[in-house]
């Protein structure tokens, strides 16, 4: 009886949390399909008076470009996530092995990188002039590939694997690589999935790297394209005496629509990762 009640309370609390969390998002979605006039007349409501898809048609007015940007974003995200997980995990594993003599150095190396930033201009100079990566697809991938933050997260997950397992593997005569690929990786699957998810979102949402390094419209990823469309509107309005704003466009709606367009694919990708994030994956391999 006690267990049942506490379970009910648990579900209730989580339910409330879920609702509280999603209300603002619902607002965003509703605003994206509300007409401008109804917003200024009736204010903000969760139940729109009229539904209009003007905002979406305005943004998608050039479908060829949006499709191209989707393509770029997808390529960059898939490639980047795959490579990123590999590189991050490799480094994190080396950092988690306390018996490794270079361990402390590696940890310090990554910590320092996390805390000190060179700043925007030096990074720009390094990327464009020293590494010649400007205006290429690779710049979108490489700059976000390994971040010290993600390395630490991954290290934390790998540390959760008991060292007895590793020792057992070595005693059995396995090499470092074999231990890594056969024991560590499978056990770290939830960690790989979590950090992989974060890396993936990092790529999918990024417009900043694109803004800095990409000039070619053919290489513009989706968030950058949406950013250009929307922020231009705002700028034009603020400086209307300079710029001829002859167009009639939906504004709040358009901005919200951008958000929805960006989030929607994530809703599809999430379940894919969630397979690995369920309780079913247990160790079960700790021998007595």
């Amino acid at each position, binding site marked *: 009886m006690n267990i049942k009640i*506490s379970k009910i309370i648990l579900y209730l609390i*989580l339910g409330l*949390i*879920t609702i509280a*969390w*999603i209300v*603002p*998002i619902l607002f*965003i979605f509703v*605003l994206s399909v509300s007409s401008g006039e109804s917003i200024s007349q*009736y*204010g*903000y409501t969760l139940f729109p008076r009229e539904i209009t898809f003007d905002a979406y048609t305005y943004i998608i007015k050039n479908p060829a470009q949006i499709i191209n940007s989707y393509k770029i974003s997808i390529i960059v995200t898939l490639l980047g996530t795959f490579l990123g997980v590999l*590189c991050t995990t*490799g*480094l*994190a594993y080396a950092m988690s092995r306390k018996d*490794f*003599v*270079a361990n*402390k150095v590696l*940890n310090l190396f990554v*910590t320092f*990188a*996390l*805390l000190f*930033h*060179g*700043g925007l201009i*030096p*990074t720009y*100079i*390094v990327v464009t002039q020293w590494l010649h990566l400007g205006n290429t697809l690779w710049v979108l991938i*490489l700059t976000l*590939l*390994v971040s010290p*933050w993600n*390395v*630490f997260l991954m290290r*934390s997950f790998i*540390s959760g*694997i008991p060292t007895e397992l590793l020792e057992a593997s070595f005693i059995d005569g396995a090499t*470092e690589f074999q231990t890594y690929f056969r024991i560590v990786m499978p056990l770290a699957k*939830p*960690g790989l999935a*979590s950090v992989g998810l*974060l890396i993936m*979102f990092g790529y999918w*949402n990024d417009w900043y790297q694109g803004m800095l390094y990409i000039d070619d419209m053919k290489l513009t990823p989706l968030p950058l394209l949406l950013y250009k469309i929307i922020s231009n509107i705002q700028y034009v309005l603020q400086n209307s005496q300079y710029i001829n704003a002859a167009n009639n466009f939906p504004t*709040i709606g358009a*901005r*919200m629509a951008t*958000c929805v367009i960006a989030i929607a694919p994530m*809703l599809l990708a*999430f379940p894919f990762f*969630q397979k690995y*994030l369920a*309780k079913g994956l247990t*160790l079960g391999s*700790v021998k007595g």
Partner: protein
Amino acid sequence: MKKNKVLKDLRRKYPLLILALPGVLLILAFNYLPLTGLVIAFKNVDYSKGIFASDWVGFKNFEFFFKSFDAFRITRNTLVLNLLFIVFSTVISVTIAIMLYYVGKNMLKVTQTVLFLPYLVSWIVTSYALEAFIDSRNGVINQSLSAIGADSVNFYYQPNYWYVILVICYVWKVAGYYSILYYTRLLSIDPTLYEAADIDGATTWQKIRYITIYMLRPMIVMLVLLGIGNIFYSDFGMFYFLTRDNGMLYPVTDVIDTYIYRALRTINNPGMGAAVGLVQSVLGFILVVSANAISKKIDEEGSLF
């Protein structure tokens, strides 16, 4: 003799080096190489010479920040707010993660997705959602207030509410992110530990305290340390867009990054900007080193180095 030991270990474990190599190279390229640009903080930039070859001016670029009368206020705001963020996000995320651990699969999937979505929403868009709540004419809160006959509150004019508002917005945005991380960590806890505790007659609460939270401790410590390392930085988008850059809120919401942005818009001196960034990094570094030393006493595994 020690050198021999080191070489021997390296030779035996060289695969670890290979595994780490790509990551190290990338961090070297994108994080360390740009650090050479920190010299800009000590230069007076002249584009005809190129920024690296410009003249040295010692600490002159640092003066403007330290001499500014507001240095105290913005530093205080930055620290206080970041501390609140770290505390609340950690507590709430851990709690949610533990709750998720005991709940069924379906609810788990839905809740995790919903919790994570805010992380993808930009601060600009969030500011509109916030406005839907706190706007002085049409916002949900004020509409409810007028329905019960109370006066409406102009939230954008009153700085003190913003301690609460900012913490709520921040938690809304990151709780999903952190709770997934903590939850994933929980998955790797050996369930036999719980079974053993059951046999010993432990209550749920005791199990949570001594197993769950204990196993989470390294991760909590690490994330808190990372947060402390960044404690002098703020998420610029958050402070700029949520507050609509309203000067009346500055006593609470003006942080180092927003102040610098305002000040440097008129002067546009990259040397000054770099100088402040350097100060933020150095201060954060000092704090982290001290905090790390303390954390070693609490939980060796979570400390950064």
